[in-house]
């Protein structure tokens, strides 16, 4: 049983599927607890990164400390708003480890979706007290009965315990807070014991270095204390501690059960490991490290190259800066014959990749060429060695490969039951292995499949969305690597291999995919003064070919006195476009062409 003031403390996260209204509900809670005045601020105020605001999504979990008087007692609530997208699931796991409870939100207009299930299980497995809330009940199309039914079927939640709320109108939000106080247990901890704290997040601040976010299990944290990070085996002196409201508010100490930030002269994010245990340097003896978390591993890779070679150094600097604040993203220099000097970057998923690229292009004002993303493969060589391969051009010749393995994802697909046939066909086409079907309600079903991650990255997600009219959702988890009959498909432009265009696919798919990519390349590469053959090959064997016919007429019919400036500008623009292209041999390839290998669109298939 908690002692003293811990009785009045609650640590909880808000978890849900994407867009079910976590951040909006957090806004209302911030208002009710008086941290902000209604109408005083932008919507989703915890989403304060530019990209979050633009895209209307949460990317980074955000903690905030609130005061809430009730029945003559001042409660302290530590709320963490989490992201809903599958790429950022690790943010949810981190947050949950710092909490005793979680509000599980379900959008009443959508019902239970893939990340609802995934995040609910994360919370249940972490042993948290769950406060189920049906959100958006203000919307006329809300199907509350169906949503309740699904919550019961899939998650075993008794409909009688579900609160009804609207983060938009504020309806039922006070009741949600009251339920958190009533149903979530206060933290358990001993303020007098030696310090033991979970490092659950860290950010880099240009002026203050690394700021770590900690949840204290036992003991106290005060300025001037000497702390040790158990895993990193490093020691620091604490300069400042405080709470997030949501800006840093310095205090005199943090106590067992509480969460807050610590400034301690830590230089680089690389020096800290999220999930590490923080102890007092002098009282470390006998303190058992917390279990920590599995570090997120990049699963999707792509090459990023500056359009103009002179920007290479700027790109490197921008990547350095970005990595300071995003430990889940990796990059190493690489060279491509086609694209020159650049970096191979690893991401948690496609959204993560998009977000990083956008930040680079915007914040650092860089013009980039991106290669199509690929997953990491494992290759068992004939000499018995196993290697991980992060780019297709590193794949050895087939006679050196004993086994070619690809990552397999266990996928939970939630969709309207009427589309189940269509989706099963797609999964089959994508080399999926059927696991099981579960009905959430008569109209909705959860399909479980094991699918190659490479197929998910390629175009599965788009196909899922179009086959289910946008209602299908996907959550996945990497299960491991499995051998498959994979090949490296090489692309040759004007008889020269373009490394940045090669890809890995299943042997049976190679010809079809090759043909499709060449068709796109033919459209993406402008005509040259000579004809440009395009070929797709496995090893030395050509499996598909196309030709870009030469440019035969390109001259302005009329050019007189009045036209000169205009025509000059036209040619200047053409030249500028040409300069942005990448030169492979004597062929100029525009940036977009490097993404031709990516995905499918139905239209093209039909035209064939």
């Amino acid at each position, binding site marked *: 049983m908690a002692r003293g003031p811990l009785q009045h403390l609650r640590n909880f996260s808000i978890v849900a599927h994407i867009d079910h209204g976590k951040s909006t509900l957090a806004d209302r809670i911030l208002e009710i607890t008086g941290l902000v005045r209604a109408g005083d601020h932008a919507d989703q105020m915890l989403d304060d990164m530019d990209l979050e605001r633009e895209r209307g999504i949460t990317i980074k979990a955000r903690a905030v400390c609130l005061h809430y008087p009730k029945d003559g007692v001042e409660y302290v609530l530590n709320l963490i708003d989490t992201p809903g997208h599958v790429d950022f699931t690790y943010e949810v796991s981190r947050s949950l480890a710092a909490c005793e409870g979680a509000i599980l939100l379900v959008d009443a207009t959508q019902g239970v979706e893939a990340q609802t299930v995934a995040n609910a299980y994360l919370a249940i497995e972490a042993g948290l007290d769950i406060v189920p809330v049906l959100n958006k009940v203000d919307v006329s199309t809300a199907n509350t009965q169906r949503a309740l039914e699904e919550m019961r079927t899939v998650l075993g939640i008794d409909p009688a315990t579900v609160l009804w709320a609207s983060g938009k109108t504020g309806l039922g939000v006070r009741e949600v807070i009251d339920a958190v106080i009533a149903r979530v247990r206060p933290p358990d901890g001993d303020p007098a014991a030696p310090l033991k704290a979970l490092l659950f997040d860290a950010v880099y601040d240009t002026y203050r270095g690394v700021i770590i976010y900690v949840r204290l299990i036992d003991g106290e944290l005060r300025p001037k204390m000497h702390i040790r990070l158990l895993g990193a085996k490093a020691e620091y002196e604490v300069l400042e501690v405080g709470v997030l409201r949501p800006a840093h508010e310095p205090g005199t100490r943090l106590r067992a059960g509480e969460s807050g930030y610590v400034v301690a002269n830590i230089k680089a994010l690389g020096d800290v490991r999220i999930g590490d245990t923080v102890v007092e340097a002098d009282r470390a003896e006998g303190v058992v490290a917390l279990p920590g978390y599995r570090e997120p591993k990049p699963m999707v890779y792509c090459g990023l190259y500056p359009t103009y070679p002179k920007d290479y150094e700027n790109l490197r600097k921008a990547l350095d800066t970005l990595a300071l604040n995003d430990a889940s993203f990796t990059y190493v220099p690489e060279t491509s014959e086609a694209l020159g000097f650049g970096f191979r970057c690893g991401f948690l998923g496609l959204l993560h990749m998009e977000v990083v690229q956008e930040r680079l292009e915007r914040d650092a004002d860089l013009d980039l060429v991106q290669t199509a993303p690929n997953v990491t493969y494992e290759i068992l060589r004939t000499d018995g060695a196993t290697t991980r391969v992060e780019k297709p051009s590193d794949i050895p010749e087939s006679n050196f490969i004993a086994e070619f393995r690809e990552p397999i994802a266990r996928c939970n697909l939630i969709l309207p039951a009427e589309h189940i046939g269509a989706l099963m066909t797609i999964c089959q086409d994508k080399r999926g292995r059927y696991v099981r079907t579960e009905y959430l309600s008569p109209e909705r079903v959860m399909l479980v499949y094991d699918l190659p991650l490479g197929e998910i990255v390629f175009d599965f997600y788009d196909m899922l969305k179009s086959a289910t009219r946008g209602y299908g959702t996907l959550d996945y988890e990497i299960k491991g690597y499995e051998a498959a009959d994979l090949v490296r498909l090489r692309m040759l432009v004007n008889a020269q291999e373009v490394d940045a265009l090669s890809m890995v696919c299943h042997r049976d798919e190679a010809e079809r995919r090759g043909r499709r990519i060449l068709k796109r390349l033919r459209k993406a590469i402008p005509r040259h003064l000579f004809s440009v053959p395009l070929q797709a090959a496995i090893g030395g064997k050509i499996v598909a070919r196309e030709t870009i016919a030469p440019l035969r*007429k390109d*001259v302005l019919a*009329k*050019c*007189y*006195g009045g036209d000169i*400036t205009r025509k*000059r500008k036209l040619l200047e623009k053409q030249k500028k476009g040409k300069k942005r292209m990448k030169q492979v041999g004597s062929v100029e390839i525009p940036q977009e062409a490097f993404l031709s290998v990516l995905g499918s669109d139905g239209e093209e298939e039909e035209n064939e």
Partner: protein
Amino acid sequence: MPVDHLYVHVPFCASKCPYCDFNSHAGRDGEVPAYVEALVAEARARARDVAPATVFVGGGTPTWPSAEAIDRMLDGVMSAVTTSRLTEVTVEANPGTLTPEKVRVLRRHGVTRVSLGAQSFDERRLRVLGRAHDARDTVRSVEVLRDGGVERVSLDLILATPGQSVGEQRRDVARAVALGPEHVSTYVLTFEEGTAFTKSLEEGRLEAPIEGRDLAHLRAACEDLAAAGYRRYEVSNHAKPGAECRHNLGYWRNAQWLGLGAGAHSHVGGRRWKNVDDPAAYAARVAAAGEAVAWEEQPAPRSALFESLMMGLRLVDEGVDLAALAARHGVDPRVEHRDAIERHVVAGRLERDGDRLRCTPAGIDVLNAVLVDFVPDEDDARG
């Protein structure tokens, strides 16, 4: 360098052709008198020191206004400049707008050359092109011009009109040649932004041009005209020996000229400027300020050199004189563009003969793609 050329713009037409993106307007004839006064005023204010070798009155349709208006305009403009050096005075005209009276007016003011917008002799093509005349009008116009004593007649033809076959075009060219013009201009139809044709194309009401078709049309026209004794001296222009348009040669040689009228461009002393486009706005500006400049620029030496190359390489046999360009622009193309010249010479698109550089027949068809390699880098364009 003296200002050798004077251009005068008349932006009025009987109707607006659906492919036309020139500064021309139909149904605004009420503005003609004020416009003519503005032209005369602009000529007096700006052309007083000019002694042009050529004058070109273009449009629009300069022969669309009444004989009185044309008279007043030519009188005002010609009396504003020094005419002692004149060797060529061209007026653009459209079939159906020429009367013996108007031709007399033209002759009285020294017009030596009329460029007639025949476009085609096939009634169906003329309808597709939305032209206000028929083939008989063209024949009659040529007669009226010859009867009136105009020495030189040029005919404009549009090639590769939607629906036109190469054979049909050959008949068009034959009919044009039969009228005995000294000069023929052939323009492959292009779809310009903002025209009715482009809109029809986008909306699928006009068939999209087939790849390579325009080249076949262009080649056929060049062949037929060459066989009839017309030398192709510029991408789209063919002339009997000595009958080249001297005024347009001035543009292609990147000479100096003064432009009068709405939307007219000028190039004097390395400066380029343009008048306001709208005829009424132009007239109001001239009335108020004696000029109507909308924008101006002074291209940097490398850009100016590029302009000289861009225009000069259009001249089929003449091409450009690299040494002369180096002297003129202070940037030597033989150094600046050594690689590009070499590459295109080797590929058979350019031909170099000492300091003379010109396009080969293969090169002229892809001149844009060749020219792109001569565009100065942005960073040193200013230098």
